[in-house]
């Protein structure tokens, strides 16, 4: 019993250490020359611009439902005019970064994990190493840069789409005064709120790529066995679950620190 507990604990420590070393190696490989921009652009395209549609879609619907719920709640206190600031604040500080990050996990994170996992399974990563090509520099560095660049931009787009969605429901459908909607927003949102959203999205961007990439990269060391198609699918599921959970945990931590 004690022995099993010990070996479990050691296993966790080992995995944590491995993840830490992996992140360190990736970050070092980003700053080490030579710099190649084409792979970075390609990854930003993959993580960022190809997530646009889903971000616009979820963003506007999130804003719409916020406005809908907010309107009926605020009306009980006769303060429908505050709708703009309620929608904007909850989007910019919380929902924007979190929901956008969850969407990116589902779309790009899972793909990254599966791609790297399959490369590991089919010896493509071994082949890179044998060709004296650093897999961190070649595979990971562009993905990390893309994650950190694309995530804040996607979050910003999500926020804007949400605010417009809120306008559509609040002003056009429910009849809140358009001037009040934007005036309240303008006076209540301060730089600190935007900063918090920005910090969150940067952290989430790094977190998503880190967890999904490391899971794929060490697929062959997974305790449940990372072999074959089933191994890839199981590891991808793990990566998506783990990144989603970490996003929510870190969301709380960052809020607690920055508020």
């Amino acid at each position, binding site marked *: 019993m004690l022995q099993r507990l010990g070996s479990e604990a050691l296993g966790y420590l080992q995995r944590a250490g491995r993840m830490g070393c992996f992140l360190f190696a990736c970050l070092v490989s980003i700053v080490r020359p030579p710099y190649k921009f084409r792979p970075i652009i390609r990854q930003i395209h993959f993580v960022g611009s190809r997530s646009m549609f889903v971000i616009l879609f979820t963003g506007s619907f999130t804003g719409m439902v916020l406005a809908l719920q907010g309107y009926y709640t605020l009306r009980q206190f006769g303060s429908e005019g505050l709708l703009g600031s309620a929608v904007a604040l909850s989007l910019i500080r919380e929902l924007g970064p979190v929901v956008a990050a969850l969407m990116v996990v589902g779309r790009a994170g899972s793909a990254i994990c599966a*791609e790297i996992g*399959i*490369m590991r399974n*089919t*010896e*493509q990563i*071994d*082949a890179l*190493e*044998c*060709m*004296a*090509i*650093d897999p961190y520099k*070649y595979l990971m560095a562009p993905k990390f840069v893309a994650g950190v660049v694309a995530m804040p931009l996607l979050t910003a787009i999500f926020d804007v789409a949400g605010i417009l969605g809120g306008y559509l429901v609040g002003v056009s459908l429910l009849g809140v005064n358009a001037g009040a909607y934007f005036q309240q927003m303008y006076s209540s949102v301060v730089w600190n709120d935007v900063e918090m959203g920005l910090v969150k999205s940067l952290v989430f961007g790094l977190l998503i790529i880190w967890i999904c990439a490391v899971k794929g990269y060490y697929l062959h060391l997974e305790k449940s066995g990372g072999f074959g198609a089933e191994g890839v699918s199981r590891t991808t599921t793990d990566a998506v679950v783990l990144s989603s959970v970490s996003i929510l945990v870190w969301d709380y931590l960052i809020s607690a620190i920055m508020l």
Partner: protein
Amino acid sequence: MSETKQNIAIELVDVERSFGQQKVLNKINLAVREGTTTVIVGPSGQGKSVVLKHMLGLLQPDRGRVLVYGKDLARMRKSELKAVRQDFGVLFQNVALFDSLNIFDNVALPLRERTQAGEDEIRDNVREKLALMDLDGVEEKFPAQLSGGMKKRVGLARALVMKPRIVFFDEPTTGLDVSKSNEIYRLFFKTQARLKYTAVIVSHDVPKIFKLADYVALIHEGQILGNIPPEQFQLSDNPVIRAFVEETMGPIYSSEREERFFYEKV
């Protein structure tokens, strides 16, 4: 060529390696002489690929040393290992082509990532290597669109594109029919004559592989037996080697035995 004059390219000294409870390599000793072709044979599951992965530095030994040109892979910094690997070319068992890159980009990748060569130079070099492998008109295709034999040839082109000093072949003909295997062997001869690399081949394509070999080593229960020229290997007195040769090639009759057999029958 006397043996003492030849340089040793790779040397395994008392290498031990276990996976879990199973001891796969038990004090392996093997020297690969520069400029020669060393073939490692043995039944499946005896650790042939494991030996190869140790030579490549993909696996570290539990005990013992793996020396490449006199330098120990296991005690190397990452940057040194990378430098050693600059001299390596590898044809993997499942070829391990990058399946999201087309054939041209696959072969060009080492040139793009490791050299300062311009695109024109890269294109010429890649086309030359593909032509050497009799692969024309496949540049735009993706690995999944090629047959097994063609993939192997692309893999060989990729392994040779940096003009390596040592080339490793992990089961180069497994899964190919006889004519495709012969094609690979023919390309092997052709490229080795031209590029003069040291070759390490892991295979169980016995006896055909003997034609390629300068030295044959048998891996048996975690140990290396032989590492001798194929003629000697086939006539070896070692009971294990003898059993392997007889199992894979049929009994070999020396004239004395053959006659006795003949007379007994009569």
